[in-house]
């Protein structure tokens, strides 16, 4: 049968969410001839719709449904209703993302083995490794057109990169370049090369940056096997007496509750909404929520150890010109406990426009210490820190039954406390980041606290044994054979690298597995 599909068609795979995980999975399945209904809570926006204005774009794309926060992270104080900065739209957060696309390092797949016991951390090895993932990474890099992989050239360095590179070299760093970016350095895959517009976070109006919104999704739809229903908010996954899932209930664009039957359900709502949905789907058979016999649904929330360093110079930089994040120092990404922490971190160039800089440089600050920094905006350079944070059982997404969303559903509460390893790593990274800029004559540096989370991982983690996690090495839930997790919430550990390339590689691999198991009659 071809799209659109009937609500009673129980032969379809239902994919919930159309971001890096769900958008890619939907297309990959459709390409293999599998019928897919993708349900996406957000609307559809394409390059001509993107707004190159930070707050206006935020209003257009961001997930603004209520969430609550707790824990000692500063986000809970400064942005208590906004634990994450992620997208509600067809294509998910791949509209916002900056495009940094790095493979995990081999040792990071086995954090428990390589880092040993870390007190307070719930470290675990992934049930897969670098060798298993290598061919999938290659496919993901080709799909995204990642620079400096295959025969794709690197991007040119902008002003912000040049300052960063000069500082890095003066400090003796060796692995410094303009990054492996899912941004075209020359025409590729029917998309043009980067025009150095500088609003990568607001959606690339040229389409030079890969986003599922204008690649995988329309291509999947073109096969006739994929139907994307936008403004369709899934409320509950339902199951039969045998414990197999049979469909999903969702609120359609008009707010009416609908029920779509399904042969398989794949959850890809990002690491807050995916566990929330499993928990909100609790039934008399599964009173603790679906796929939660381990009690691990919602736990081990990771957001990467992050922070930023901005610096002011005595001459202009104009960091906002050109790609937002095309620059990286990789020397600190190794595992080297002599630095006082396990795991490593990357330093990546970053710029914010004046409106976001005012909001995020030092949230809540006021007076001349703050404003004299902004006075030098034109002379500022910036970098972002992204490192491996420790999974902790108590860092978790739970249902907050006191707060309901517009559909009357309990919202996600996000609890996060920094682990001592996260703090030690952040302090090291601040010191190194400031040293980079000091080495090229910074007159003032700013160790800037983490923003609302952009990388959200781990709340339905992958594990060898059913007691340790929620899904197996295919993203299939340990408890329910026809229920899959297909987004960043599968991550067992976070590694130092930006996660999306890995989410995409896992989705391509999962599509292959699901299609194979379907034709073998196992699913």
């Amino acid at each position: 049968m071809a799209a659109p599909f009937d609500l009673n068609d129980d032969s379809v795979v239902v994919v919930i969410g159309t971001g890096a995980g769900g958008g890619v999975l939907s297309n990959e399945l459709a390409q293999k001839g599998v019928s897919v209904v993708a349900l996406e809570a957000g609307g559809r926006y394409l390059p001509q719709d993107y707004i190159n204005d930070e707050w206006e774009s935020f209003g257009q794309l961001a997930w603004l449904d209520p969430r609550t926060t707790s824990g000692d992270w500063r986000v809970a104080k400064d942005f208590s209703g906004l634990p994450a900065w992620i997208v509600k739209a067809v294509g998910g957060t791949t509209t916002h993302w900056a495009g940094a696309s790095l493979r995990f390092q081999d040792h990071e797949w086995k954090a428990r083995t390589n880092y040993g016991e870390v007190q307070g951390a719930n470290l675990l090895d992934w049930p897969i490794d670098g060798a298993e993932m290598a061919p999938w990474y290659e496919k993901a890099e080709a799909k995204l057109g990642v620079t400096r992989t295959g025969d794709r050239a690197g991007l040119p360095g902008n002003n912000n990169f040049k300052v960063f590179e000069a500082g890095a070299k003066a400090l003796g760093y060796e692995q410094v370049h303009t990054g492996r970016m899912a941004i075209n350095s020359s025409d590729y895959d029917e998309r043009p090369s980067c025009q150095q517009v500088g609003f990568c976070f607001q959606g690339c109006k040229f389409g030079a940056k890969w986003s599922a919104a204008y690649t995988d999704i329309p291509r999947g739809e073109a096969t006739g096997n994929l139907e994307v229903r936008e403004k369709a908010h899934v409320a509950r996954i339902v199951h039969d007496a045998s414990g197999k899932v049979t469909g999903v209930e969702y609120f359609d664009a008009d707010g009416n509750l609908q029920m779509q039957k399904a042969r398989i359900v794949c959850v890809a709502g990002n690491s807050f909404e995916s566990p929330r949905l499993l928990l909100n789907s609790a039934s008399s058979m599964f009173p603790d929520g679906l796929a939660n016999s381990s009690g691990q649904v919602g736990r081990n929330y990771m957001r990467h150890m992050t922070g930023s360093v901005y610096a002011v110079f005595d001459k202009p930089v104009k960091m906002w010109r050109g790609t937002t994040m095309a620059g990286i120092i990789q020397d600190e990404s190794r595992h080297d406990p002599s630095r006082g922490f396990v795991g490593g971190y990357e330093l990546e160039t970053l710029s914010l426009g004046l409106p976001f800089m005012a909001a995020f440089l030092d949230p809540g600050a006021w007076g001349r210490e703050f404003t004299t920094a902004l006075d030098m905006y034109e002379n500022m350079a910036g970098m972002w820190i992204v490192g491996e944070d420790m999974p902790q059982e108590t860092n978790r997404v739970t249902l907050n039954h006191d707060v309901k969303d517009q559909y009357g559903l309990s919202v996600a509460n996000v609890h996060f406390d920094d682990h001592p390893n996260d703090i030690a790593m952040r302090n090291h990274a601040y010191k190194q980041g400031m040293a980079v800029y000091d080495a090229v004559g910074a007159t003032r540096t700013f160790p800037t606290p983490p923003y609302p989370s952009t990388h959200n991982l781990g709340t339905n983690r992958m594990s060898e044994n059913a007691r340790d996690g929620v899904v197996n090495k295919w993203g299939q839930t340990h408890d329910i054979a026809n229920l899959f997790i297909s987004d960043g919430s599968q991550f067992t550990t976070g590694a130092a690298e930006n996660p999306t390339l890995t989410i995409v590689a896992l989705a391509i691999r999962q599509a292959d597995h699901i299609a194979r198991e379907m034709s073998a009659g196992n699913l």
Partner: protein
Amino acid sequence: MTTTPRSLTRRALLQQSVAAGAAFVVGSGYVAGSSAAWAMEVQHLQPETMATLIQMARDIYPHDHVGDEFYAAAVKGYDSADAAPGIEAGVAALNAAAVGAGHASYLAAGWERDRVDILRGMENSPFFQMVRGGLVTGLYNQKAVWPLFGYEGESFSKGGYIDRGFDDISWL
């Protein structure tokens, strides 16, 4: 943005005004800069209250190269029937704190340092936090302010920076 009340010429405006602190003059239904370079009508707030609010905005986020009219625009939204009672109460508390510190009013405290001390004393009040929080977008998201910081805003309509200096840094 701020407009001069249409019925008033600059000279008439100055003649009908009284000073509110050093930076502002007020008259019936308006606040203006002391030089009358800009003026703003107020409907729901006392003009002195608006003048105090503008000064408070500058003291929270002082940028010496940004004119008062931008601060005025940033707080203009509080001149509404809904917001006015809370603002009048908040500014009254601010003035009371100023009196407690030995000044005739907040605006009468001549040194920024003295006014900032008064603000520090009420930093955790909902009134202060509302005004400060509102300024983060109210001030810095004004497109007219951006050039004063060198920020160029969108570049898509000009084809990006690929031919317009994305890598033009010359001092490294």
